[in-house]
């Protein structure tokens, strides 16, 4: 075309809870400009072709974590995913493993519940007084968990995980990685509390190390590493319990 655009076919999931029993698809022809991301095409559809399409997005710079969708079967941040990666047909679906509210918009409440469960905040036996100054941490101590603190809650890891698909109680990659991040934080004293949660049904040992969460993570958080390090810690705790005072009742 004269303006340098190339037409691509978008197969987009549509679901209106008032009209549809189950999700269907709709096909759109979009004149894709060079350097467009998947999100640009979705915005074009909404602005120019079909204003009824619903999708979430905000920052356009891979920080807010709201534009996650399955693109050609793989969970992606649509603002970060270039259309040049794909051929003439692009399939856009809501994130797998999540109930669908409408079109490409998924239900978040279940995810939020799982996040809360791991107590993702610094727990102190005794709160420090303001006069005592800040909690100090060396760069080495920060490096131990820094990677696991980079999560933007985009939920791609949940959409990729085969365990999430089949075990509804499973806490899942991002939540466990976040719990592990606080456990490894030198300022935190809540590891005992969180490990009690980690030793419950549907937590670290439910992970089968498919590593898909880490493969799709746009921020290189590597949740699979966090979960398996947490398992390693649980084994060490279990072994230590024999050295100290016999098997510990938790």
């Amino acid at each position, binding site marked *: 075309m004269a303006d340098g655009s190339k037409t691509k076919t978008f197969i987009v999931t549509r679901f209106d809870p008032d009209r549809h029993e189950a999700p269907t698809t709709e096909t759109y022809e979009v004149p894709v400009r060079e350097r467009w991301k998947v999100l640009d095409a979705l915005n074009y559809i909404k602005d120019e072709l079909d204003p009824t399409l619903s999708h979430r997005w905000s920052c356009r710079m891979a920080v807010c974590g709201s534009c996650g969708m399955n693109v050609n079967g793989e969970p992606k941040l649509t603002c970060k995913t270039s259309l040049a990666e794909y051929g003439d047909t692009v399939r856009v679906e809501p994130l797998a493993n999540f109930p669908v509210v409408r079109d490409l918009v998924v239900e978040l409440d279940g995810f939020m519940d799982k996040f809360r469960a791991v107590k993702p905040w610094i727990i102190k036996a005794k709160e420090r007084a303001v006069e005592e100054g800040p909690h100090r941490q060396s760069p080495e101590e920060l490096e131990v968990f820094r990677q696991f603190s980079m999560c933007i809650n985009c939920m791609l890891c949940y959409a990729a995980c085969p365990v999430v698909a*089949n075990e509804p109680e499973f806490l899942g990659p991002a939540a466990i990685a976040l719990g592990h991040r606080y456990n490894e934080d030198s300022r935190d004293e809540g590891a005992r509390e969180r490990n009690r949660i980690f030793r419950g049904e549907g937590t670290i*040992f439910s992970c089968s190390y498919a590593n898909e969460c880490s493969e799709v993570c746009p921020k290189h958080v590597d949740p699979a590493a966090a979960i398996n390090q947490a398992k390693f810690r*649980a084994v060490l705790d279990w072994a230590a319990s024999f050295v100290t005072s016999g098997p510990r009742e938790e």
Partner: protein
Amino acid sequence: MRKLLLQLEPVIWLLFGQGILIGTLLLTGWGLVLGVLLPLGMVPEEALSYDRALRVGGSLLGRLVLLGLAALPLWKEAHHLRSLSIDFGGAERDVWIAPLLYAIAALGSLLALVAVFRIPFPG
């Protein structure tokens, strides 16, 4: 049963870890000899004779290796087949699949332990 399994998870994971690590280290050579070198005629008759097998397999290291080769892969198997079962919609049937698979691994390990002790001791 579910609660017991939950308490045993670290032990099971440890055995699984050894199964996949040591099991793989040992099975590679075992498979290479019996699946590649043997059909190529590169394993001398004498190497697999009873006397030599008894001498090698009956040594302390031999017994340990045989125990590892027989028992550890079973833990890798149990854990992985369990997760495969869950991956194909088996969260509910895991209630009996998991105990069954781990019981097979435990029984196999016990048999392996008995068997390596049954190998005649030299002298």
